[in-house]
Each structure stands twice: as C-alpha cells, then as structure tokens.
C-alpha cells in the first residue's frame, strides 16, 4: 500500500485537485444552475494565493484562505448579477466570466506575471492536507444531498415553480450556490497552485471547463460520488493505458459525446439503476409469476427505499 502510494503520489494528487474543481461545477448543476464560474474562481483563487504567497510574504494557509474567500465573494457577486438568466444564457455568461478572468490575468502586468504567469509559489501543502480539505468539502456536499435539504435542492432543480410554491426561496438558493461554487473553485485553485508552484492564464481556458465537465458527465452529475468516479477515470486512464495518453483528447471527446447520448446520468446513474433493478427483482420474484409481472412490480413497489435515490434515477435526463 505504502509502496503503491509513493509511486503514484502525483496521480493521486492530480485526482484530488481535479475532483475539487469538478465539485465546484457539479454543485450548481445539481441545483439546475448551469454555471461554469467555478473554473474562473479556480483562476481567482489560484492567482490570489500565488500573489499573496510570493509577493507579500503571506503564509501558505492564510494565502489559501484569502484566495478561497475572494473567489467566493466575487462568484457570489456574479451570482447576484446573473442568477436570473436561464439555461444556456447563464452558461455562456459564466464562460465569459471565466475567460475575462484569464484576460485580466494576462494583462495584470508584474502583479500577475502577464502571459507567462506566476512561478515559484511552492507552498507548504502536502497530499494529506489536500485529502483532509477534500474530505471536508465532500462531507459538506454529502450533507446537502440527503434528507430535507437534499430534497429541497432536487426540487429547485427539477421544478423551480413548484419549489417556490412549496415555500422554498428559489432565488436565494440559486444565489447561494454561486457562493458555494466560488468557494470550492477558489479552494481548488489556491491549493492546486501552491502544490504545483505555478499558474498561467493559459490554464484558465475553455479546455479546463471541458475537462471539469467531462469528469462530471462521465461519473454522474447527481452526487459527489459521481464526480469522484469521473475524476478517478479521467486521471487514471492515461496512466493505465499508454495509447490513451497519445490519443487522450480524441478519446475523451468520444467518451463525452457517447455519455451525453447514451448515459445522461453517468457511470453512477448506470450503477444506481442496475442496483435498483437487481434489488426490486430479487424482492418481487418469489410471489410474482416468473415472466410478465416482474417489470411492473418494480415500478409500483410499495417500500421503495430512499426517496432521493429513486428521484435521482427518474431524473436521469437532467444531464
């Protein structure tokens, strides 16, 4: 185990930072807010932390905290401005926000290092720290997926009008999700930058949006577990299959396109569906006649467990 870890520490680290970034985009998606602002916040967090650390002699952790907070605040302000837009318009506005961050970073003069970015911002962060931060973020997200709060989020996504009629303040939820997404994105940026010691404007581009989206789409958009599956697949595939590394972008393109067509809820959705089918079949087979009624019985099963799970499998079309 230890030997395995030491030889793969870099890939483990990449998995964790990719996951953090993907989570910052997945959270708004779960609320039906198609926001890519998390990638811009990655840039804000990363640049803020790197500038504070290299130019103002701020310690590692204060730099991370300030970067995270600044990204969160800016993303919340963005949310205040654009949360009323819907669907594609919101998506493109947040892509525009992300790309503006890159343009500002390119033009920041000596502060941001221009097009070549910032070097030598190697902070005192190790993989254990990243793991703990990640666990903290995931714990928060996991809480938001279960029980009353989880159902609230599901209803805001599935039917905002209905949610409003049930007394849920939809617009407040939508604004707050920008804050949360910005904080996670900023944290991802700050941690990644201080781990790798560099950040350049070229990183915060459309490609990063695509990468984060790929992770979510492959894994599944309904839960943090989906992002974890996606991040593991995306970062480990090139190390396991050498021909993948060579044709990486083409293969990812195919995977994303195929997933969008055939597997809208990702690997996680597929697994959940299979488990659900297997469970209901096992329960309903003994009393039911062997052939015809099996499917029917699985549909109106009385003791359908965990309401948010069955909801998640029926809303497979969300992504």
């Amino acid at each position, binding site marked *: 185990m230890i030997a395995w870890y030491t030889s793969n520490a870099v890939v483990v680290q990449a998995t964790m930072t990719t996951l953090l970034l993907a989570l910052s985009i997945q959270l708004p998606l779960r609320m039906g807010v198609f926001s890519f602002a998390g990638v811009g916040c990655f840039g804000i967090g990363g640049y803020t932390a790197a500038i504070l650390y290299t130019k103002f002699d701020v310690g590692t952790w204060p730099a991370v905290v300030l970067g995270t907070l600044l990204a969160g605040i800016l993303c919340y302000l963005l949310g205040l401005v654009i949360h009323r837009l819907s669907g594609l318009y919101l998506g493109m*506005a947040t892509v525009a926000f992300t790309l*503006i961050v890159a343009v500002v970073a390119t033009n920041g003069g000596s502060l941001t290092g221009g097009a070549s970015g910032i070097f030598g911002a190697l902070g005192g962060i190790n993989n254990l720290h990243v793991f703990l931060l990640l666990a903290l973020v995931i714990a928060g997200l996991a809480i938001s997926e279960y029980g009353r709060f989880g159902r609230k989020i599901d209803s805001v996504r599935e039917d905002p009008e209905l949610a409003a009629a049930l007394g849920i303040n939809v617009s407040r939820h939508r604004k707050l999700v920008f804050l949360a997404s910005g904080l996670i994105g900023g944290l991802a940026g700050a941690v990644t930058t201080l781990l790798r010691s560099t950040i350049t404007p070229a990183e915060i581009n459309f490609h990063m949006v695509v990468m984060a989206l790929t992770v979510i789409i492959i894994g599944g958009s309904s839960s943090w577990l989906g992002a974890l599956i996606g991040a593991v697949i995306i970062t480990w595939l090139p190390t396991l299959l050498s021909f993948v590394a060579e044709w990486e972008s*083409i293969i990812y393109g195919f995977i994303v396109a195929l997933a969008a067509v055939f597997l809208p809820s990702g690997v996680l959705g597929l697994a959940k569906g299979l488990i659900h089918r297997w469970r209901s079949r096992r329960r309903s087979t003994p009393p039911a006649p062997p052939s015809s009624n099996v499917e029917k019985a699985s549909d109106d099963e009385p003791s359908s467990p965990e309401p948010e799970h069955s909801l998640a499998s029926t809303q497979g079309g969300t992504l």
Partner: protein
Amino acid sequence: MQELLNTLTLGSIYLLFALGMALAWSTIGILNFAHGAIFVFSAFSAHFVSEYVAMPMPMLILISVLVGATLSALTQWLAFEQILKRSTNHRSAELRVLIGGIGVAAIPIAIVDRATASAPFGFANSTYKSEVYEFMGLRMTNTSLIVIIAGVGIAVALTLWLRASRQGLGLRAIGVDSETASLMGVNRTVMAIGTMAIAGGLAGLAGALQVFQLQAMGVATGDQLLIKAFAMIVLGGLGSMAGVILGAFVLAGAETLIFAVDLGTWVDAVSFGLIFIVLLVRPQGIFGRQEVRRT
C-alpha cells in the same frame, strides 16, 4: 477609413461563422458547440488537400464547404438527433446537446492538433495570389473584397430565404413550436439535418476565407470564434438574422477599435464583456423578442 474597411472584412468573416450558428439555434433550437471545431477542421481539410495538389481558390473553398456541411450534418444525425430522441424535457435536452457538442468538438480539434503539431496552417500551395489595390489612400486586397461580398451577400440571401421561402417558413415554424409544425406537415428531422448542413457549410466557407485572408489559422481559433459568435447572436437578439448582421459588425468594429488604440491584449475581453452587458441590460438582444415558453 482604413479601420472601417478592416471592420467590414473582419465582420464579414464573423458574420459567415455566426449566421450558421444563429440559424440552427433560432430554428431547430440547437446551439452547436462543435461549430468552431467544424470551422477549423474544414479549413484544415482544404489545407491538407492543397499540400498535395496545387488548387485554385474556388476549389479549396468548395472542399472546405463540403467537409463542413458533411461534418455538421453527421453531428446532427449521430449526436443531437439521438439526444433529442432520448430526452424527456426541453431543459435537459438543451444541456445534453451542449455537452454532446463539446464532446464532438474535441475530436476534430484533437485530430488537427496532432496533424499540425499545434502549428498554424495555411494555403501556401494554392494558385491563388493576393493582390493589393490602392484606392484614394485605402489599401484593400482582392481577398477582403471577396470576403466582404460573400459575407454580406450570403447574409442578405439567407435572411430573405428564411423570410420568404416555403422552407424558411417551415423552419421558422419549427422554431416557434416543433410539435405543431410537424403536425402541419413539416418534416422536422430532414429539416434539422438540412439546416445543420447549411450551417456547417457556412462554417467551412468562413474557415477557408479566414485562411485566405489571414494566410494562416491556429487550432484554437475555433473556440474563440464560438464565444464571439455567441456574443454577436446575443447582442442582435436570438431569432433575428438582421440582429446577427448588426452584432457581427459591431463586434468587429469594437475589436478593430481596440487594436487601433493599441490595447491588443484586451481584445478578447470585448466579446466577453459584451455578452455580460447585453445579458444584463437587454437579455433578448437589440432586435429580439422576449422568449415565451409554455410548459
């Protein structure tokens, strides 16, 4: 005056690119994220052929247009049509089409990136020679003349076609309500594939002309142009072809101005900023109507 001429040339290429995207988005409701990739790939195909055979300009343009149209129609048929068939509600279909487009776009871009080793490519081997005309102190190449004529001409023709022809009417009917339109005898699937082929052909045309105009094209051009085209469509208002024409020239003018005052590195921020401002101040665009969607 020279700036005005540059604006016209730049705007015409923007226009050709954005027209196809706007046509597909406003009628069949598909925002094709692979449009930029199709633009790059079709220009690259023409470049690829021109490496082996010295060709005149019209042939290269024809190759580019055909490749673009084929690629776009295939994308519609193999990806978007399948997504629409499989999704239950409008909103999820929209998002899946977007993601599917992003996935499809990665494939041709990766192929071009590998084939060119990320270096810009051009039509060095073409028999076409660019000539410079001087007229009242204005410099103009024959290329930019062709670009402007093609851009404005096609934009006007497409607008008129959409407004006056029977197919145009059918297409607009799909845009308003695809179910009712199909009950009235509009074949949605065929129309959609045809529309996407036209859109892809326009992207191919824009690609070839861009290479002739600027001598070279980089792989990343497609993505930038995609965002810019979105800015143009949003500015003019979705569903209005006149809006796209206006949007293209406004954006081209603004960018030319930024270059003229020597702030070249900020040039990308113009379109992004424009998207923002328009969406905030007037989300339906200058010529757009407020979208009404019944559930």
